[in-house]
């Protein structure tokens, strides 16, 4: 029998029992939709948290806290070796000073966070400029975007407090200061955290301003100075081997996990976002598997409907099957026709379920955040998108395989029963 004729044969049969076939498809669709929606909540929450983690961090960054060994320090040779590793874009080394910086800008006084670093490496890693240019010598520095804010005067703060939109006001006033920053000279007093006395004083010219950080709440008030300038300060503090913050930057997020592992294998103490994600992913995978299993139970319940429908179809059509076999339909064809019918029921059910699930998921993602944030009288944080339900294509694939598979399995026995119908018995009954 030609494939086309088989399809026609099945659709003819299904049309003769419209209501029952419809109800069965409905049951199959509900089971499958339940499975998808349930699991999609697991995927949605996973996505929300993952997005949150990733957006808070420079995801290509791997922190190097030290190395196994007596003093747990990473040597410059080791840093060079890491720099030459595959998929490493650059390694940024910052020298830490145990003091804070009080800054004088002409008449104004403010503060900053002194960072001695390799500016070329910083630039390669992620330091981008808002205005100005990169330092041409160690006498020049880059300052953070909100460095200007520390120079707002008492009066200006009063003005800000009085304003309707104080954030906008602060931004506006700070912008005025920032606009004049490039080219100005600052005097930096390095103050001892413990004794509060000034240990060293350095003078710099601001050559550029770093780009505004991605997150609104984060204020970048750093002063990025060249590493060579740290020796004088370190000497004042009497420090020979300063603490360094070392970060390895991968060329792409996809290499972070491998790089992290390979550094770990070499004995480095490392931390990257993949560490956090790894544990979280495992937890969520477990949750998702659990939800898929619960959802599968719904599909299995629906499969009873398919089993019932197909068994009744076989019983009802006993005579017709007898006639078909008598005039020469092979058992394999009979089996295939019934299997195709139950598969088709499962398939149509799945297609409906996927469509409904996407629609429902869409609605849920709009409605649930409104209910949640509405009820606790809080405004949704503007920069945080909450995904309650998320349907990745993998979920659709899993759900489709499960529901169509279950449909095929539940149609199996009835189809076998159809092939074993005795021609003589079937024809005798009428």
């Amino acid at each position: 029998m030609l494939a086309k004729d088989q399809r026609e044969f099945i659709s003819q049969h299904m049309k003769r029992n419209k209501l029952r076939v419809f109800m069965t498809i409905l049951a199959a669709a509900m089971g499958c939709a339940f499975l998808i929606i349930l699991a999609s909540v697991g995927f949605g929450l996973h996505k929300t948290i993952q997005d949150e983690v990733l957006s808070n961090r420079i995801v290509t960054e791997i922190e190097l806290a030290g190395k196994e060994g007596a003093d747990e320090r990473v040597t410059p040779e080791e840093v060079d070796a890491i720099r030459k590793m595959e998929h490493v874009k650059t390694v940024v080394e910052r020298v830490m000073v145990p003091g804070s910086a009080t800054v004088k800008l002409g008449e104004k006084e403010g503060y900053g966070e002194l960072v001695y670093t390799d500016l070329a490496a910083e630039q390669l890693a992620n330091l981008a400029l808002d205005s100005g240019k990169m330092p041409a010598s160690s006498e020049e520095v880059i300052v953070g975007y909100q460095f200007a804010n520390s120079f707002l005067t008492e009066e200006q703060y009063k003005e800000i407090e009085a304003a309707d939109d104080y954030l906008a006001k602060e931004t506006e006033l700070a912008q005025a200061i920032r606009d004049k920053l490039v080219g100005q000279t600052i005097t930096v007093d390095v103050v001892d955290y413990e004794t509060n006395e000034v240990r060293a004083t350095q003078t710099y010219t601001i050559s550029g301003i770093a780009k505004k950080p991605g997150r609104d709440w984060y204020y970048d008030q750093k002063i990025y100075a060249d590493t060579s300038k740290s020796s004088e300060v370190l000497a004042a503090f009497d420090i020979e081997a300063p603490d360094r913050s070392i970060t390895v930057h991968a060329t792409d997020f996809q290499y972070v996990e491998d790089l992290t592992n390979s550094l770990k294998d070499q004995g480095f103490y490392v931390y990257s976002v993949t560490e956090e994600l790894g544990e979280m992913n495992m937890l969520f995978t477990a949750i998702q598997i659990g939800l898929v299993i619960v959802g599968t139970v719904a599909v299995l319940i629906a499969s009873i409907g398919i089993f019932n429908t197909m068994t009744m179809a076989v019983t009802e059509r006993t005579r017709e099957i007898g006639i078909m076999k008598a005039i020469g339909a092979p058992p394999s064809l009979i089996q295939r026709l019934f299997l195709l019918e139950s598969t088709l029921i499962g398939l149509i059910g799945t297609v409906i379920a996927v469509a409904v699930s996407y629609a429902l998921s869409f609605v849920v993602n709009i409605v649930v955040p409104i209910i949640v944030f509405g009820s606790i009288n809080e405004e949704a944080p503007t920069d945080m998108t909450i995904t309650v339900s998320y349907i990745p294509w993998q979920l659709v694939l899993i759900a489709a395989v499960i529901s169509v598979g279950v449909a095929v399995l539940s149609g199996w026995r009835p189809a076998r029963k159809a092939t074993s119908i005795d021609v003589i018995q079937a024809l005798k009954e009428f």
Partner: protein
Amino acid sequence: MILISELNHTFKIGKKGQEKDIPVLRNVNLDVAKGEIVAILGKSGSGKSTLLNLLAGFMTPESGSIQVNGEELVGKTETEKANFRLQNYGFIFQSFQLMPGLTAFENIELPLKLQGVGKQQRMIRVKELLQQVGLTDVSDHYPNELSGGQQQRVSIARALIGRPSILLADEPTGSLDSETEQEILQLIQLLNHHYGITFVIITHDEEVARTAHRQYRMHDGAIQEEMHYVS
């Protein structure tokens, strides 16, 4: 064409463990030549249908051999037998056995679908045959919208459409009035004459048997050819 030799069949009835044997066919020998109409006569319960069912491959005999068109049927698998029927046999049943959900046209078309014949070919062949059996006007009727004679014509057309070499008929006129019976018998003779189709007709009716070239008579599962009829 058909050569049945030493065919035996026994039905087992009753519960397991205390089955009773009912011997139905005993050493049946029968031969049918190409282009012949052969009738098998006998009282009800003499084993005629059992013989035909075995010949059709609807069941497997206890012992003996059934050769059709040079092929041994006994021992073939269900699939092989189904394919054999599809290629070699046409069936005419007493109760027509038409598919209730299909129109006259679609019923006749069915064996061609099973043979995998394309739609266009099917249209041509079914239309032609509908004309020959005089059913063109009712081709889109369902079986329950047709008279007994019309239904039997549809079933004959369905039996013929696949161009089989042998037609097996079990009481083909059993459900028809005598006038319609005559029509059907004439049609059988016409088809035999025109296309050389071999017929094996089972009947308890001497009148029907007379249209055959040769007659066999069954009695309690034993068969013997009748010599005194002259057709």
